[in-house]
Every structure is written in structure tokens, then in C-alpha cells.
């Protein structure tokens, strides 16, 4: 059971990077299309649900960890921040796509890099588990 939960949690994390890399590609000038935006959007939704569900399940399943452990609370706060930054990044992109316009690097970067930092921060907490 532990292996299955951890695998699904890690696959969810890997899927989050589909969104992060896609936005990074736009930030350095790759073309934005409805198809790539839909993929980035869906990947973010699927990974977010997977990270939260399987992450919390893991914390409840394992004897050594509690949901209120500092590193888990920190990860949840960073997850909420990443979700907020992601929503803001999406808000900037959507109207342009609907109008058939092109994105500029500046429009993509600000919220995207904050979201990326939050996700990398979560990964660091998952690896080092400070206080565990």
C-alpha cells in the first residue's frame, strides 16, 4: 500500500512539472497554443489533486508522521501559495488566448516563477523533512 501511495504521489509531482516546464517554455518565447495551454492546465489540476490526496493519505497511513508535523504544514502552506500563484498565472494567460493574442515573456513570468519556487520548496521539504 505504501509503495502504491508513494508512487502515485511522486507521479503527481512529476505531472506538476509538465505545467512548470510548459510555462517556462512560454517565458523564454515558445509559442502559446490552445492545445499546450489545455495540457498545462489539466496537468496542473490532476497533479494538484494527486499531490494533496496521496500526500495526506501517506501522512495518515504512516505511523511516524502526523499532518501537523512542521514540514508537512510547511508543504501544505507552500501548496496553497503555489495554487494561488498558478491561478493568477492562468488568469493572465486565458484572456489573451481567447482573444487569439500572443503571450509575452513578462506576462508569463512573474506568477509562474513564484509558483515554480513554491513547488521546488515543497520538494526540498519532502526530501529533507526538517524536524521529522
Amino acid at each position, binding site marked *: 500500500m505504501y509503495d502504491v501511495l508513494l*508512487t502515485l504521489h*511522486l507521479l503527481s509531482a*512529476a505531472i506538476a512539472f*509538465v505545467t512548470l516546464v*510548459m510555462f517556462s517554455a512560454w517565458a523564454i518565447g515558445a*509559442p502559446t497554443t490552445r492545445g499546450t495551454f489545455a495540457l498545462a492546465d489539466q496537468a496542473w489540476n490532476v497533479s494538484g489533486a494527486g499531490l494533496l490526496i496521496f500526500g495526506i493519505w501517506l501522512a495518515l497511513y504512516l505511523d511516524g508522521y502526523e499532518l501537523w508535523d512542521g514540514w508537512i504544514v510547511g508543504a501544505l502552506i507552500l501548496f496553497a501559495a503555489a495554487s494561488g500563484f498558478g491561478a493568477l498565472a492562468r488568469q493572465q494567460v486565458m484572456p489573451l488566448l481567447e482573444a487569439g493574442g500572443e503571450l509575452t515573456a513578462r506576462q508569463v513570468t512573474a506568477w509562474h516563477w513564484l509558483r515554480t519556487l513554491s513547488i*521546488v520548496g515543497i*520538494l*526540498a521539504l519532502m526530501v529533507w523533512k526538517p524536524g521529522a
Partner: protein
Amino acid sequence: MDLALFVHVLGAFALVGALATAAAYLVAARRDGSLELMRAGYGALLIGALPAFIVTRMAAQWVASEQNLLDSEATWIVAGIVATDVGFVFLVAATVAAGLAVRRAGAQETGGEPGRGVSIAAWLVGLLIVVYAVMIWMMTAKPG
């Protein structure tokens, strides 16, 4: 050990993200023959997937060295080595195929004729995504 593992996992996730990005652009380019989309797919492989692969593989060696696993014959380690070494050949082949497709399309200035290189690159990248998803399971469950 923690830093090596952090770099390894970060590199692996970035590799999966870059491969998915490349696949999205290459499949779109295959459909409409857009040179711009072809270039983006090629770029995702060249400046995204290849560096991420190198970081992942080097950090894997670092983790194995710190955990005295360099001579291990455990199934999950052997599978990881085989998948990355063979995967590297596939990744280079996909990058070369995409690069040649971009070059050919750029020279001919064709629209709507993506060529075989884009298809080959898209299939190889799709295969790599599946293989690396299985590798995530193997590195986690560590069978054998």
C-alpha cells in the same frame, strides 16, 4: 545524501516535464506542419530534456556512490541504469530527428508538410515518457 537525492528527483521531474512539453509541440507540429511549433518541440528536447537527463543521471550516480550501491545488482538499480542508458540513445535520436525536421522545413519553408522526422521524434518522446513513468514506480517500490 539528501542534496544528491534532491538534485536527482528535481532533474527527473524536469526531464518528464520537458519530454511532455516536447511531445505536445511535436504532436501539434505533426498535425499542422508549423515550423514554429516544430522549433519549440526541438528546443524543449535540446535545452530542456537533454540537460535534465544529464543532471538526473549524474545525481543518480552521486546517490549510488553515497549509499555504496555502485556495484549493486538489485533489479531496480539495474533497470534504472538500463532505462537511462538506452533512454539516452532514444533521447538523442529524438533530438536529432526533430532538429533535422526543423532544418528541412526551414530550408523548404513548407507549410503543412511536417515530414517523417517530427513523427519519429514524437513517438520516441512518447515512449520515453512511458518508460520514465515506470522508472518512477521502480525507484519508489524498489522491486528486488
